[in-house]
């Protein structure tokens, strides 16, 4: 027995275990070190989570203060005066910081100023934020007096104060003169500068008090606070800077992830039993780490925050939320709208799928592509179109109906700004989800199952109800649930239709709450948890219903026998399907197009005075729009390219290896795609601003990561299913012929699955390109996308221009689809 034992013990096992233990200890050491560092920091008074959050909020405010309140004044000075002011501000800044630190900090100021091209601006902003937090006191009496001034008085006061800093002899307004009574030199100038800053607006609030107090509370000691000022001045916190300033949390994060990886690897090795380290595990772990950090952690934290808003367990968030009628209304609206959309969408999708897949309907292929194409169109586009069509006052269809039935000029008869309107638009945009799922199931279903029913004496209709419907039920349910969850988590449509109509949904409430500071964020988490729970329940249920998972993938083939001859119904049914297509596809798109040529949205485009191409020239010449378009393209390309690399890697792992743990990333990716967009974005906002060692808030990274989490699966499924179709013997044959693994991938597998890789790339790119829901939460001034720009223009500025952008986006999507079709030689189109 003893001998046997020794023999079966694998020497590699011991080596592996020792190696893992070393890494585990390393991870633990990092965590301990990081914790120690955090402890140091917290005793030094830097609450990083709150700190970074306020820093990020202050950035745009500071920019605004400088651009609107300071720059114009400085520009009013002559060159000499301006350089004198610059000189003086520099001195004030050093003095302020030196006093605060009770040690000389001129070197620190120099450091912060040295890497900037616009010293004047930088030091002015640094001084502004310093003075807001801890500058010369402005009494409430003085504030009141300032507030009492009218705009002209205030302007005169500010001019005088600014000049007073330059020249002691200038006569100051009474208020300022009183304040500097008995003070001189820097001290006097400091007070004047504070008065200059305070008087920037009626409220005497150069920067919002809430943020200033928040940052004060979060950063209590001098040097971290100066660092915070500098970060706020520069814009969002770069990750390098953050790593340097707060590497403590990052260290903890790296340590935790390392320990997690080691433990996971241990279980994988143990389950595998061979104790042979495999490079593939490193790849799997890397993908898992990415998903855990950017997807699982944010979601877990979101739930945690909803139940532990202040670190203690409470239902307070939920009771506060759900006793508020508007939220309760949003909740019921969401459930009703999503439920109705699910029912209507499925009721539309099943007959359409059947007609296209099982009968001799005219133009089946064309209709199929048409219905599937809608899937690739941004939903907000439909909302915009239907708003123009069904606006109670000027909606084209309403006007038409009123004229037709002589209803007079009263608004109506149809009103888009209603729950019904919301359901209608949601239905027209989400029925393709069910259509695709059901069509796919029908394509896979052996047609002889239906033929057997016919030959048994059943009519085509009986066959539909007794055979086709029951057989496709799992996919029908899956499709219906997909419609439900997509409609429930949709933001674009309810934000456009719901907001003016006061029809709130959970998503619009979440995004509204998010804009309302800390309390708002915590309320948003409560709603997000609600949405997430629905999504997860549905995801699990859907998996349960269809034991074999079915996902939406694209493919071109649709050669099916015409099992049912529509006979004399062939023409009427084709006409009905055409009418449906015209109603839900042609009319909305045409409306977008015509509106883009209008000056006044309420009048006809054929009215000579109303026709203009200005909207188009405008969107193509406005630098902001072009910048947004560039952002969208860049984000989309990055997301799709990173995504397709992961997708190909995962496909290889899933289809060509039996490596343990390969299904974990697969599961996480599926989970990500099932999570509502706003929930993903909210989770990222709450965890990616430095509090967990990573700060990518307000950057392009956070956008690309969010898109990846949401859309990666679409690309992955396409590549996986293509790879599963290629028999492994084709690869083995190449290797037997002497080709290396890499050469085989490049020469055999690559070319064979290239069409699917291209399709997968586009499937990730297109939704990322026009994304709105997540962008609304994650954008910053420098990372606005075309979808968001369009939304802003629609809501606040100019609907015809928004329509021009929308039609532009539509054209890009159609063009890409065409390109894809050419690229894959007709095998794929979306």
């Amino acid at each position, binding site marked *: 027995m003893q001998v046997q034992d020794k023999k079966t013990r694998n020497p590699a096992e011991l080596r592996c275990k020792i190696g893992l233990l070393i890494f585990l200890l390393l991870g633990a050491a990092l965590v301990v070190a990081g914790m120690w560092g955090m402890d140091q920091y917290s005793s030094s008074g830097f609450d990083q989570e709150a700190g970074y959050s306020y820093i990020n909020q202050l950035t745009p405010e500071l920019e605004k203060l400088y651009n609107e309140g300071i720059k114009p004044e400085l520009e009013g000075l002559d060159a000499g005066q301006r350089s004198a002011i610059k000189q003086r501000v520099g001195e004030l800044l050093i003095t302020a910081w030196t006093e605060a630190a009770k040690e000389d900090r001129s070197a620190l100021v120099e450091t912060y100023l040295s890497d900037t091209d616009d010293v004047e601006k930088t030091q002015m902003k640094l001084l502004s934020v310093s003075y807001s937090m801890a500058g010369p006191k402005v009494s409430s009496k003085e504030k009141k007096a300032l507030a009492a001034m009218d705009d002209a008085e205030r302007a005169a006061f500010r001019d005088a104060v600014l000049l007073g800093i330059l020249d002691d002899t200038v006569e100051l307004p009474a208020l300022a003169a009183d304040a500097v009574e008995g003070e001189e030199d820097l001290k006097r100038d400091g007070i004047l500068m504070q008065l200059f800053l305070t008087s920037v607006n009626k409220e005497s609030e150069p920067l919002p008090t809430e943020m200033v107090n928040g940052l004060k509370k979060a950063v209590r000691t001098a040097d971290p606070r100066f660092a915070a000022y500098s970060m706020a001045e520069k814009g969002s916190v770069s990750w390098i800077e953050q790593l340097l300033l707060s590497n403590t949390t990052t260290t903890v994060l790296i340590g935790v992830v390392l320990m997690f990886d080691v433990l996971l690897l241990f279980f994988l090795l143990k389950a595998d039993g061979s104790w042979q380290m495999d490079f593939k595990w490193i790849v799997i772990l890397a993908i898992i780490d990415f998903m855990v950090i950017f997807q699982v952690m944010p979601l877990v934290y979101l739930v945690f925050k909803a139940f532990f808003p202040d670190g203690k367990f409470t239902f307070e968030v939920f009771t506060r939320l759900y006793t508020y009628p508007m939220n309760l209304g949003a909740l019921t609206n969401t459930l009703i709208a999503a439920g109705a959309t699910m029912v209507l969408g499925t009721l539309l999708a099943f007959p359409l799928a059947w007609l296209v897949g099982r009968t001799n309907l005219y133009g089946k292929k064309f209709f199929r592509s048409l219905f599937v194409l809608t899937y690739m169109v941004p939903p907000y586009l439909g909302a915009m179109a239907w708003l123009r069509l069904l606006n109670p006052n000027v909606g084209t269809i309403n006007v038409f109906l009123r004229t037709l039935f002589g209803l007079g000029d009263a608004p109506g008869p149809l009103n888009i700004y209603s729950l019904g309107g919301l359901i209608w638009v949601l239905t027209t945009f989400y029925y393709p989800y069910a259509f695709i799922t059901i069509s796919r199931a029908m394509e896979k279903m052996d047609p002889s199952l239906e*033929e057997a*029913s016919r*030959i*048994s004496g059943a*009519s085509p209709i009986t066959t539909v109800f007794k055979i086709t419907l029951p*057989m496709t039920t799992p996919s029908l349910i899956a499709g219906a649930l997909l419609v439900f969850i997509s409609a429930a988590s949709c933001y674009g449509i309810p934000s456009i239709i719901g907001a003016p109509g006061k029809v709130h949904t959970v998503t619009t409430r979440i995004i509204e709450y998010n804009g309302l500071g800390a309390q708002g964020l915590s309320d948003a988490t409560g709603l997000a948890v609600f949405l997430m729970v629905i999504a997860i329940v549905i995801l699990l249920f859907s998996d349960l219903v269809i034991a074999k998972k079915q996902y939406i993938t694209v493919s071109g083939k649709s050669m099916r*026998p015409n099992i049912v001859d529509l006979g004399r119904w062939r023409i009427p049914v084709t006409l009905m399907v055409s009418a449906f297509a015209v109603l839900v596809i042609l009319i909305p798109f045409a409306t977008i197009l015509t509106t883009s040529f209008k000056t006044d949205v309420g009048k006809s485009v054929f009215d000579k005075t109303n026709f203009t191409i200005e909207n188009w020239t405008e969107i193509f010449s406005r630098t902001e729009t072009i910048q947004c378009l560039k952002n969208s393209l860049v984000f989309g390309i990055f997301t799709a390219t990173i995504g397709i690399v992961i997708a190909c890697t995962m496909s290889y792992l899933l289809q060509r290896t039996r490596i343990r743990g390969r299904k974990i990333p697969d599961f996480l990716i599926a989970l990500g795609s099932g999570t509502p967009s706003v929930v993903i974005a909210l989770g990222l906002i709450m965890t990616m601003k430095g509090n967990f060692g990573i700060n990518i808030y307000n950057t392009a990274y956070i956008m690309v990561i969010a898109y990846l989490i949401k859309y990666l699966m679409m690309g992955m499924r396409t590549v996986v299913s293509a790879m599963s179709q290629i028999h492994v013997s084709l690869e083995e044959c190449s290797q037997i012929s002497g080709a290396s693994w890499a050469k085989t991938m490049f020469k055999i597998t690559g070319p064979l699955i290239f069409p699917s890789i291209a399709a997968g790339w586009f499937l990730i790119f297109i939704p990322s390109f026009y994304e709105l829901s997540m962008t609304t939460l994650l954008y910053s001034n420098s990372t606005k996308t075309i979808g968001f720009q369009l939304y802003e223009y629609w809501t606040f500025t100019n609907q015809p221009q928004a329509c021009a952008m929308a039609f532009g986006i539509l054209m890009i999507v159609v063009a890409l689809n065409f390109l894809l079709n050419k690229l894959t030689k007709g095998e794929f189109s979306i």
Partner: protein
Amino acid sequence: MASVNIKNVTKAFGPVVVLDQFDAMFENGEFITLLGPSGCGKTTMLRIIAGFEKPTKGTVLFDDKVVSDDKVFLPPEKRDIGMVFQSYAVWPHMTVFDNVAYPLTIKKVPKAEIKKKVDHVLAAVHLTQYADRIPSQLSGGQQQRVALARALVASPALLLLDEPLSNLDAKLRESMRFEIKEIQKEYGITVMYVTHDQTEAMAMSDRIVVINRGVIQQIGTPKQIYMEPANPFVADFVGKIEFLEGEVKEGKIVLDGCGQKLPYDGPLTGKVLVGIRPEQLQFAKAGDGELTGVIKSHFYLGNENDCRIDLGAGKEVRIIADPYESMDVKAGQQVSLKVRHYHAYPLNEDSLNFRKILT
């Protein structure tokens, strides 16, 4: 019970003609097999009879009733046919009983009668104890019998079987062949059977219709098809055969190249194509046989001895000899062959091209 009369049926899918002027009459109670290589049009013919395809031209009659012509087209559910599909098409969401009862349920037959009929047909296919199972719990052969029971339960006039045995393993296939034949006898039903397996066709059919490229090559009993194949295609498709070219000269066929002669008293003259099946040859004593040659190779298979004989000038024939009579044959040995029977066809482009037709 029904006879099936197919008059001049042509079916084209776009420019591709899959059935060309198909003309046949099948009698009541006959077991008819449509035999041919894949893609020959046999399944299309079956689907036309079932009503799943509309012929481009021509008429189909059941007894005297037109079921399909230019004006009339009876949909499958009105044709009173039972059919077994290649994939069985057993509905996975119903139990065996419900699957089999379906044709009766559709006809709104009273429950008690359904029960009686289904039990009877399930007994006939030996599935009585599986009535409450769902199809995924059954083996391929059992599912196949469910399909058969369902096709039979409503006592249709005509039973169509589309390669029903092709998904079964060899042993099961043989026993099912027997069962289907038994059931046909019991129900006295007209059966049309589609297959590309000649053994199946030979074993089961009253008459075989050999089809190639959408054209009927020959209709006849298994014996006729085998012993008197109408053309080289039929001869080649059913059974094994070797072809040699030759010329009729003075009551003999002189084989090209080797110059050996076969006795001939048929009507052909000039160039001919001679087909000899391996079992039509027999080893003979020297000087006794029609042909002589040298054994090129031989494969001893236990129940037979499969030899190739070189007749000279590269011309070869194959003989499947009795192993006891050819125990000692060796490669290189000079042998004499007796020709018991052979087939001769005029040598023309068609007869030379039949192999191309096949593939």
